């Protein structure tokens, strides 16, 4: 094994790069309580969001899957789920879906007769877990125990020209080293779907990409009424950019195309359908089991994830492109071995080095909507 890092071993065979105690709200109504518990106990991270009630079908399923996913994330040492009581997304249902490989407890505001009791109970539970987590030491673990996300954000042809082949090499190297890689597929990459489909053997997975290249099925209220399910054709510029961006996903075979907060069931390179909302995309990656994400952009991004470190990589650009938020710069005419340097940085960050976004404590969590609330 070529690459190692110092991380936290988990009972289910996975490994974490951070050792957080997670506090997860099942619904927006318990978010104030979750935030307050987290403010009172250092070492905890709050997972608050706007969803959890008055949702239907796939929209509700996505909320539940994503919350179950982040609870299961290897960076989470233990997790407290806090509900209200009367919400659609019931804590008991979440507990049934979460594998019992780490300390998990669920509590509810109505069941405990109020926010104050719930906060007190939550503080005492999570304090104990934080103490237990503090005793756990980092161990030398193969990098192949990790799932790493790669997300391209707000780039242009100019920045892609510098970043795409370097990141492609990084992705190939990680996949060759048996690291599980999830590559974010947002709207800008969709036109290259048929090109990427050639790298997939499974017929069902292949079809997902070919469909994407025709324009994703995006049900809008007005479209749904008319029975229309696709966007109009992509322009030549969109196709060109997408093909450039696709190089960032390297050259290795693609195992699967993930959606709806799915967790990959085998190692390899996976594509994950993402919205263009940065916070939602990072949250989806956290829910799919990523322990760290490499963000590739034309600029520093203004927020990361509460669940995992985000390494920001940009091409060398004009000054003031939010440089304070950038972890690594790819120079236009440098002779560095970018691939090795980026993987070395990834190992350092996975071993505990804080990213710029972590230093500034910029992190969020959010769940996308697939439809309206009721």
């Amino acid at each position, binding site marked *: 094994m070529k690459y190692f890092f110092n991380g936290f071993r988990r009972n289910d065979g996975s490994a974490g790069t951070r050792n957080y105690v997670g506090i997860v709200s099942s619904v*927006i*109504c318990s978010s*104030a*309580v979750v935030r*307050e518990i987290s403010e009172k106990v250092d070492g905890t991270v709050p997972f608050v969001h*706007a969803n959890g*009630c*008055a*949702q*239907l*079908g796939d929209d*509700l399923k996505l909320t539940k899957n994503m919350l179950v996913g982040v609870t299961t994330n290897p960076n989470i040492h233990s997790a407290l789920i806090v509900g*209200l*009581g*009367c*919400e*659609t997304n*019931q804590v008991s249902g979440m507990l049934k879906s979460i594998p019992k490989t780490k300390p998990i407890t669920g509590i509810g*505001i*109505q069941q405990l*007769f*109020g*926010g104050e009791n719930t906060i007190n109970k939550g503080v005492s539970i999570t304090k104990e877990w934080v103490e237990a987590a503090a005793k756990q030491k980092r161990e030398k673990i193969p990098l192949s125990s990790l799932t790493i996300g790669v997300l391209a954000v*707000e780039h242009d042809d100019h920045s892609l020209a510098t970043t795409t082949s370097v990141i492609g090499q990084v992705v190939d190297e990680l996949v060759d080293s048996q690291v599980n890689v999830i590559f974010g597929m947002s*709207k800008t990459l969709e036109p290259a779907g048929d090109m990427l489909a050639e790298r997939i053997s499974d017929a069902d997975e292949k079809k997902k990409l070919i469909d994407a290249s025709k324009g994703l099925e*995006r*049900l*809008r*209220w*007005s479209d*749904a*009424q008319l029975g229309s399910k696709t966007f109009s054709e992509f322009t030549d510029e969109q196709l060109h950019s997408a093909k450039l961006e696709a190089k960032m996903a390297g050259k290795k075979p693609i195992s699967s195309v993930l959606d709806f907060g799915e967790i990959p069931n085998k190692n390899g390179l996976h594509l994950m359908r993402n*919205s*263009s*909302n*940065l*916070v*939602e995309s990072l949250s989806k990656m956290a829910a799919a089991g990523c322990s760290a994400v490499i963000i590739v952009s034309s600029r*520093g*991004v*203004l*927020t990361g994830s509460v669940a995992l470190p985000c390494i920001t990589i940009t091409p060398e650009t*004009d000054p*003031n492109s*939010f440089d*304070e*938020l950038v972890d690594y710069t790819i120079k236009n005419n440098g002779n560095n071995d970018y691939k090795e340097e980026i993987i070395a940085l990834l190992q350092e960050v996975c071993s505990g080095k804080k990213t710029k976004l972590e230093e*500034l*404590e*910029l*992190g*969020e969590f*959010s769940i*996308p*909507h*697939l*439809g*309206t*609330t*009721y």
Partner: protein
Amino acid sequence: MKFFKGYRRSDGSIGVRNHVIVINTVGEVASLTKKVAQMVPGVIPIVHQAGQSQSLEDIEQTMNALLGTAGHANVSGALILGMGQDDTAEEIVKVLKNKGRHVHSINFNKTQSISEALREGKLWLENAKERSENEPTEMADVSELIIGLECGGSDAWSGITANPAIGAFSDSIVKDGGTSILAETTEAVGTEHILARRAVNEAVGQKFLDIVKRYEERAWAAGENIRSANPSPGNKVGGLTTLEEKSLGCIKKGGNSTLMEVIDYAQRPTEKGFIFMDTPGYDVESVAGLVAGGSQIVLFSTGKGSPTGSPIAPVIKIGTNSKLYQNMPEHIDINAGKIIDSYLSIEDIGKEIYEKVISVANGEVTSSEKHKNQEFSIWRLAETM
């Protein structure tokens, strides 16, 4: 005549609170919004993940909600944080400045570093906070109040105690020249004929029937039955069996007054009196819409005990039963259960609500304010793109 002390704004509106807020236009700036708010004590951060990668109808709805929140009468000063090109922060500031409101925008657009932008934000907020502390109050008539009517975590008592008492209050304030806004279109399903009959004219009645129909069709078109999300599991434990039953209880909050106007989400009423706003049954999103539409205070009945509030409007919690009041006194302001076990009438509790509304307008802190229940979310109509 009933009066309260409020803060007169340059656009003529009158607030019952004097908050300084920071609000983001797009999700990526949410963390920085909280960060800059933390730098100045007493400043309220309002964050959300709407505003980008949305369908046009959602972009429009988000814009209305942000305008209504940042320009709300309860807000003394608002800092709006945006990023990149085509951001709405500057547009929001332009609209509100034209009305003379105290607002400022910072756009993270690479022309200044993050630390410079945060420093600018902190300075502006410190000034805004100081400015707000020197603003005088003046006496105003209750006819200037807009009260939002909401329910969350309903049970079988809701339609018997708290909601009819809210209805009695609503009729009183409407009689006094004020405004009340009933909401939650989901919970009008099955009872739309009752409210439509109370419309001031055929056009208002028809608009009401149309939004209810549109609501149910929106669910059917997405292959879903609205009735499977509502009543919620907690509603059922509380004794509600169908959406129609929940709805019959819900509309009791609207009393018996004439329905003067039907408005869209986060839209400000142009009429006084009893109004209906098109919002989802999801209480936090509904309250955000009612407040963005100008409600200075929201009445919120609950049977199961829901603690949620609003970042800028005091929310008064009305419990439907005495057991809830005994179990969760910290979250309940008024116990309507007394209608059942203390021989008080619906009108008695209606009066108690009215007194509480005046007292809260004058500054009394509600339970949701005390516990910093500042939940905020904008109703999303379609999938994130």
